């Protein structure tokens, strides 16, 4: 029971990180636009060093996973070593790029630094997502149809959240071409998810075809219909909230679908190695949670109500 609770908490942390890093992809797209095309002040507003604090969700999620499921660490480390090393490289390049861009007075447009920022911003969540896919499929990503279909959905999902974020914060400057791009990403994301992944999982007889999988398919089916509806009603910003919800909940649903396994076919219960402090840890989380909620609330309030003159 404790193992499942912790797995859901860790999946939620990765969901939040995935959502935030998909927003980063959107921010990197804003930076690639020339300042006469977009509202430069608004795009710079989102490029702030304070955004880097979002990395804590990754640290928290990854450390939490290692600490709680320590019995499986040798196997997990071996399985995701290559992807993990690549992710570390991307994190380093991204950090260097962010520092450089901050130094460069937030210069917008097509430059190597902005391109590197965009590429690494996309590759980081994609790589971490692929690590998750590696765990739930139990084999190398390129050796099974389910893994490849899930990776494709993940990529489209990140692009869909990023596009809808740009639409959300930059709506007055959004061109019809960009609207169509958002719609394509969202429809493709939902379409690939519901058709290709479903078919791959069912035809391969994968263990993932459980309740969690049905819930995930349901979310994507709804996304498909929802996209059509909001496009019809010209309420594109609703997509942003809906896709955010899908991004945050997807890791939870997949982790749920993967039960009773962790690194397939290794059992979740066997991976759990925090017997000495598992219950105390949950009490600790409950005690600290209000402080974190207050901090987040203060941050959101201050950030969203920034005076215009302070945007730089």
């Amino acid at each position, binding site marked *: 029971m404790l193992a499942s609770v912790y797995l859901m908490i860790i999946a939620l942390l990765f969901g939040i990180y995935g959502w935030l890093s998909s927003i980063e992809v959107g921010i990197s797209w804003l930076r690639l636009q020339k300042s006469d095309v977009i509202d430069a002040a608004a795009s710079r507003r989102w490029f702030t*060093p*304070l955004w*880097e*604090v979002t*990395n*804590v969700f*990754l*640290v*928290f999620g*990854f*450390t*939490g*996973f*290692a*600490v*709680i499921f*320590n*019995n499986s*660490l*040798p196997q*997990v*480390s*071996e399985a*995701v*070593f*290559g992807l*993990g*090393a690549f*992710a*570390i*490289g991307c*994190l*380093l390049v*991204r*950090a*260097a790029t*962010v*520092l*450089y861009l*901050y*130094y460069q007075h937030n210069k917008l447009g097509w430059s190597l630094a902005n391109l590197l920022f965009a590429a690494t911003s996309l590759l980081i969540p994609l790589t971490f997502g692929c690590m998750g896919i590696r765990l739930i499929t139990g084999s190398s990503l390129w050796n099974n149809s389910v893994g490849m279909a899930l990776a494709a959905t993940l990529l489209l999902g990140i692009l869909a959240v990023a596009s809808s974020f740009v639409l959300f914060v930059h709506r007055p400057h959004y061109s019809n071409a960009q609207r169509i791009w958002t719609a394509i990403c969202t429809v493709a994301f939902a379409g690939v998810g519901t058709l290709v992944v479903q078919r791959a999982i069912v035809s391969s007889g994968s263990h993932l075809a459980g309740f969690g999988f049905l819930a995930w398919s349901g979310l994507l089916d709804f996304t498909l219909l929802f996209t059509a509806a909001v496009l019809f009603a010209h309420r594109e910003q609703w997509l942003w909230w809906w896709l955010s919800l899908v991004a945050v909940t997807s890791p939870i649903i997949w982790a749920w679908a993967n039960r009773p396994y962790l690194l397939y076919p290794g059992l979740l219960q066997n991976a759990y*190695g*925090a*017997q*000495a*402090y598992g219950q*105390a*840890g949950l009490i*600790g*989380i409950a005690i*600290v949670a209000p*402080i*974190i909620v207050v*901090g*987040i609330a*203060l*941050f959101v309030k*201050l*950030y969203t109500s*920034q005076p215009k003159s302070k945007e730089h």
Partner: protein
Amino acid sequence: MERISAGRALMGDSLAFHLIFVIFGVALPLLISGTELYGIIRHRPRARALARTWSKALVILFIAGAASGTIISLQFSLLWPNFMEFISKTVGVAFALEGTAFLIEALFLSVYMLSWDRFSAWGHWLCSVPLFLSSMISAVFITSVNAFMNQPVGFVLGQNGQPTNINTWRAITNPALFTEVTHSVAAYICTVAFVFAAVYAWLYMKKHHSHDRTWMRQVITALLIIGLIFGAITGFLGDRSGKYLARYEPYKLAAAEVLETTTGHAPLIVGGVLVNNQLRYGLKVPSMLSFLAYNNASAEVQGLDRVAPQDRPPLYIHYFFDGMVGIGMLTVAVPVLYLLLYKLRRRWALSRLMLALVVLMGPAAVLATEFGWMLTELGRQPYVIYGYLKTADALTANPQVIQLAIFFPLFFITLIILTIVVLRRTMNHKAVHNAR
């Protein structure tokens, strides 16, 4: 390059790089909060402006620190899975608590930065309280993991080589905890004070701010007083650490002092060069090691003869020990000299020679902290968890470690150069000017 050497080199590079940001991440929030509080109580807007300038530097250091911290957390699990398995079972909760404190620190850093000019003075200062408290708590928990690696207690080793009958609280509050936490945190505060004093001394020497010179003198003097206080505290706690080492980690002390044979009236050797594992040309102070270790000049100090040859730490840690202690003494001597001159011959205190000495103390203080951690880590080798898990057994079997060890230092060097460039921009004369 062998796999184990590559793993060690990679982790050593990463930790040495990350430590620079840890120093600032732990000590700077306290310094900023203290400066802002001083500004509010004494009605000194300049002090508040100074805290604001420093908080901008903290954000830049936080970007690089968050990146390197994220990388370290990934490396622990990917490179050292057997170590993480062992440590997670026993003191894993300390990792989780450190992560929680880090999350709170990150949140309140954002709140603190966004609320300048938007909250009342006291309201804004209050936001710095969770910021510096969480940074300190974070340091305590992560240091407790390292202390456990030096003094693993609170469990019984099972048949399968894994810990059983675990008492997490006892494991976290191990005998090494108090000395390690207090000594390192005091050293961080001392280091940050010296680094900032060095920056302002450099700017003063460059004569960029003819209108600010009185204010800058005050800042340099105040920072050197803080450096002196915490340098002295670090020295006192260092003496406590030495006594702790003699009692709990005698092998480390023996290697640091290249003491081959267990003996009473053990000498302290200052300096020297290692030739074929023999220390030569060092200055020998008779009975001093016995006195420092046990407050008794005739006390017996354990030598390396009590440790099996294959379990002995590398003797080159003697250099780190001497380097740390030597610079540690300078953190007291240089401010004392400066303050005496400032009182008696102010022109001499502000001479280029004296200011150059203050400038040099900035990187020297960082180096001393690095030396201290190298002594701690290398002095425990060949074990990663003393007596239970050897470093070679903790490493992943993946051969790609070698490639990573070659490429990653290049990334780290790039990142640190960019951090320094951006910090220079933030702390340039405009920033100082704004502090007027």
